[in-house]
């Protein structure tokens, strides 16, 4: 059954108060660091002060001798992982790399890399013990810059990595872990045909997800190996799976309980602390809590890649883009796995192009291993492509939205990375952008307007859900995805809609790994799509069961029962004449009609609809200081169907704000020794309330027919356009094109100063 007709919906599309809301505004909600267990110890981690160093020895006896210290762990406690156990489930992660990222083996590969850990009866004693752990290092040459790392004579991080994707296999190891290529048509022929060619280089810096909650966990290992993990993550099943393999424990011996999660944005899709806390708990026989400091979060987790991107566009004078080429070089940090592949796929995905060639490189350097960050890879590529498209529009004298409309992807367009689009809403976002009141407003001096679009493919995958009708007719729905931004509300709404009951008759629960079947992580904008599909199907199964029970109570055939408005009715006069039965009526008789009424569903969801968006940004440039003020911002997005519109708007607004930070102020700054200089929120500047205006949202709804309610992922694509939208607005305001992020006041001021003589001459 489908619920794509919006007019028939009673719950979906409304804005109820989220079920976990009261706990979160009163301080009762329990996040990762809020858990306490009897006899609990405090763990702390010793980290490398060097960007690259051989670890010659780790001596722990002095630390162990400190009163109050109960355990110390080093790499020697962790198993080596054989090659056949290097991946897990549907989302492959190289577990050998992940293990060495959790605890360095042989070499420290970045400043902040964990080399040992201690557990003690208080945080202060644990901290004191860290200083007593003696690590002897041999500092090695290091490399931070992406292009320097690609040079043949660059310091090598790993001697067993040979560039993959190159034929024949290279004879020498390299920091280039992978090369990727997507091609369509013939770009050289395309450029030969072009009237105008624009070729530009753009750069971005690593930026951190900067969730406000630092990583935290409590792990308790019993002497029989049975283990409980309480932690904040984007997936309790991810925590269980990764930890089990990294420490060498059976999955059935680990129960992972999801705490409330204080933001993740992709950065909590891997483990850092749980395997270490496991070892400390195993050795001490007591539960161990580890909470990262903010400084540790910056030095040792996340960020996303910094990158160098070369873009070349060729167009006819009428605006048709006939050829597009890009080379993307993404930093992966100390282990392979930058999101360059997604960058290659997403950069040109908004366009209908005859000739495309995209080449990507995954490049190691002595920086923390990158982690996923909201639409991983796409914002970086799109900053370059959407800036270059704007440069092309200005060169051709064609309106930026019109150029995008002319060249924009639509149903039937085949993207260079493979898919042929169906049911996409990109053109509708452009039409809606053209119709905004925002676009009709006039700008003042030193003000400018920028347009940029974005694409993200979204994800489906494995999800489980269970729908239980309680004895009083209320409903409990259990799902397997940590609720990172209000998804409990969406789950309960979909179930309430199917059952025909009020929203607050349904209470959603995020189950631990023993309470619900396997579910992939909260990420890829997949929860409302895949999780929503699972809860909807579980509720539909319950409706079928309720009809059977009503049939038993009435002694008629189940086919003669229909379900609507939360009640069973006889299907027409032939079925007999009975008073309708509510959920409560049926539930109260469940023991006599067959027992408890529940349904659990496991799916591997396919058919997530891609997300397209178009943003409009107005800025004002202060020529004295180089400061850029965001005056007005409108995000227009195809959201499929907004289940809870407030939380969809919230995703759009939050993505914009993160993008504005990426555009204007956020960056990792290293000193000459490869040490991070700004590991705190004072010097790593994320947007605050006074940096932002209200963010207008326009939700275009092109329902995704593969989802029962038409939903498509909405959480990630809003971070894709802002960097280019801001850059394009600055160019509009000043005539100056900034191609390097962040466009911070010193950088813009320098560019303004450079251009001042030209401006005066022009005047």
């Amino acid at each position: 059954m489908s619920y794509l007709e919006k007019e028939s919906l009673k719950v979906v599309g409304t804005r109820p108060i989220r079920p976990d809301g009261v706990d979160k505004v009163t301080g009762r909600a329990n996040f990762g660091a809020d858990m306490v267990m009897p006899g609990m110890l405090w763990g702390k981690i010793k980290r490398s002060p060097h960007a690259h160093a051989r670890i010659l020895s780790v001596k722990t006896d002095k630390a162990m001798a400190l009163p109050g210290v109960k355990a110390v762990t080093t790499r020697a406690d962790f198993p080596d992982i054989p090659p056949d156990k290097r991946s897990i489930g549907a989302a492959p992660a190289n577990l050998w790399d992940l293990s060495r990222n959790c605890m360095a083996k042989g070499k420290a590969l970045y400043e902040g890399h964990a080399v040992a850990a201690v557990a003690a009866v208080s945080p202060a004693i644990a901290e004191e013990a860290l200083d007593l752990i003696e690590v002897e290092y041999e500092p090695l040459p290091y490399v931070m810059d992406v292009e320097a790392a690609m040079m043949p004579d660059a310091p090598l991080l790993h001697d067993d990595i040979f560039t993959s994707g190159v034929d024949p296999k290279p004879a020498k190891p390299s920091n280039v872990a992978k090369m990727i290529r997507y091609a369509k048509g013939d770009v050289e022929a395309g450029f030969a045909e072009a009237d105008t060619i624009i070729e530009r280089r753009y750069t971005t810096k690593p930026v951190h997800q900067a969730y406000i909650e630092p990583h935290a966990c409590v792990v308790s290992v019993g002497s029989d190996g049975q283990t409980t993990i309480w932690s904040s993550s984007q997936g309790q099943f991810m925590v269980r799976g990764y930890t089990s393999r990294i420490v060498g424990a059976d999955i059935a011996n680990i129960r992972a309980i999801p705490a409330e999660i204080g933001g993740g944005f992709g950065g909590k899709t891997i483990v850092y602390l749980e395997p270490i806390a496991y070892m400390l708990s195993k050795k001490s026989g007591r539960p161990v809590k580890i909470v990262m400091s903010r400084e540790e979060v910056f030095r040792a987790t996340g960020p996303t890649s910094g990158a160098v991107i070369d873009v070349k566009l060729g167009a006819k004078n009428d605006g048709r883009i006939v050829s597009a080429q890009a080379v993307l070089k993404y930093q992966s940090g100390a282990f392979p796995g930058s999101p360059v592949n997604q960058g290659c796929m997403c950069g040109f995905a908004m366009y209908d192009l005859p000739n495309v060639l995209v080449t990507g490189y995954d490049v190691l350097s002595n920086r923390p291993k990158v982690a996923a960050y909201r639409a991983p890879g796409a914002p970086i590529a799109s900053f370059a492509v959407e800036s270059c498209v704007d440069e092309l529009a200005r060169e051709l004298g064609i309106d930026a939205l019109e150029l995008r409309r002319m060249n924009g992807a639509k149903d039937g367009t085949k993207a260079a990375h493979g898919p042929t689009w169906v049911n996409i809403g990109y053109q509708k976002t452009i039409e809606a952008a053209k119709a905004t009141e925002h676009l009709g407003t006039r700008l003042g001096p030193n003000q400018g307007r920028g347009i940029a679009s974005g694409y993200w493919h979204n994800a489906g995958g494995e999800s489980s859900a269970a729908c239980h009708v309680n004895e009083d007719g209320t409903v409990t729905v259990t799902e397997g995805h940590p609720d990172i931004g209000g998804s409990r509300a969406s789950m309960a709404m979909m179930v309430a809609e199917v059952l025909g009951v009020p929203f607050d008759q349904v209470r959603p629960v995020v189950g631990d790994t023993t309470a619900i079947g396997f579910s992939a992580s909260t990420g890829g904008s997949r929860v409302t799509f895949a999780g929503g599909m699972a809860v909807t199907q579980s509720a539909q199964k319950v409706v079928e069961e309720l009809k059977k029970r009503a049939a038993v109570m009435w002694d008629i055939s189940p086919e003669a029962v229909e379900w609507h408005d939360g009640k069973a009715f006889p299907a027409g006069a032939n079925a007999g004449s009975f008073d309708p039965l509510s959920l409560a009526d049926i539930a109260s008789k469940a023991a006599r009609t067959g027992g408890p009424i529940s349904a659990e569903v496991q799916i591997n969801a396919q058919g997530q609809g891609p997300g397209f968006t178009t943003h409009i940004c107005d800025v004002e440039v202060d020529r004295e200081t180089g400061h850029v003020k965001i005056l007005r911002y409108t995000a227009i997005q195809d959201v499929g169907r907004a289940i809870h519109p407030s939380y969809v708007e919230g995703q759009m607004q939050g993505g914009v704000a993160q993008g504005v930070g990426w555009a204007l102020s956020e960056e990792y700054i290293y000193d000459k020794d490869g040490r991070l200089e700004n590991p705190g929120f004072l010097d790593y500047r994320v947007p605050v309330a006074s940096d932002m205006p209200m963010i207008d949202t326009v939700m275009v709804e092109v329902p995704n027919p593969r989802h029962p309610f038409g939903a498509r992922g909405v959480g990630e694509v809003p971070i894709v356009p802002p960097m280019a939208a801001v850059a394009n607005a600055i160019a509009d305001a000043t005539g100056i094109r900034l191609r390097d992020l962040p466009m911070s006041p010193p950088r813009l001021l320098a560019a303004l100063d450079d251009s001042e003589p030209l401006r005066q001459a022009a005047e």
Partner: protein
Amino acid sequence: MAKHHVSTTINGEPVEFLCEPQQTLLDVLRDELNLTGSKEGCSSGDCGACTVICDGRITCSCLMLGAEAEGRTIQTVEGIAQGDKLHPVQQKFLEHAALQCGFCTPGFIVAAKALLDENLNPTEEETRYWLAGNLCRCTGYDKIVRAVLDAAAVMRAEAGR
């Protein structure tokens, strides 16, 4: 190391505790008094997740020592609602969907409550600058600012102004 004995008032109740000299008020609230509603996001006074009201002023509890609470009056997020009646700021945060992950929310609730204690009719700009010491990475601040302005309107109506 000898512990300090501290007598203070938290959420209207007299409270006594022992703390180590280096423990912050936030450490004491969370680890000694089980008041875990105040969150630790940075321990450097930059994120505001640990915001409390101390003698009427908003304060990052991570920047104040536990021992400094002696003789003071402290209000934490746990003391904002009156029993089961939410403060208008809390109610409006829920109605406006002004939280996503909810981790920064306690700090925002306390800071916004302090703003409205002082000024029942703040402009959008005043609200944004008042809340500039509280980081939210999820919402882009739009719905937070709307919730606070709406709560102010409700409180003005209740006050007959």
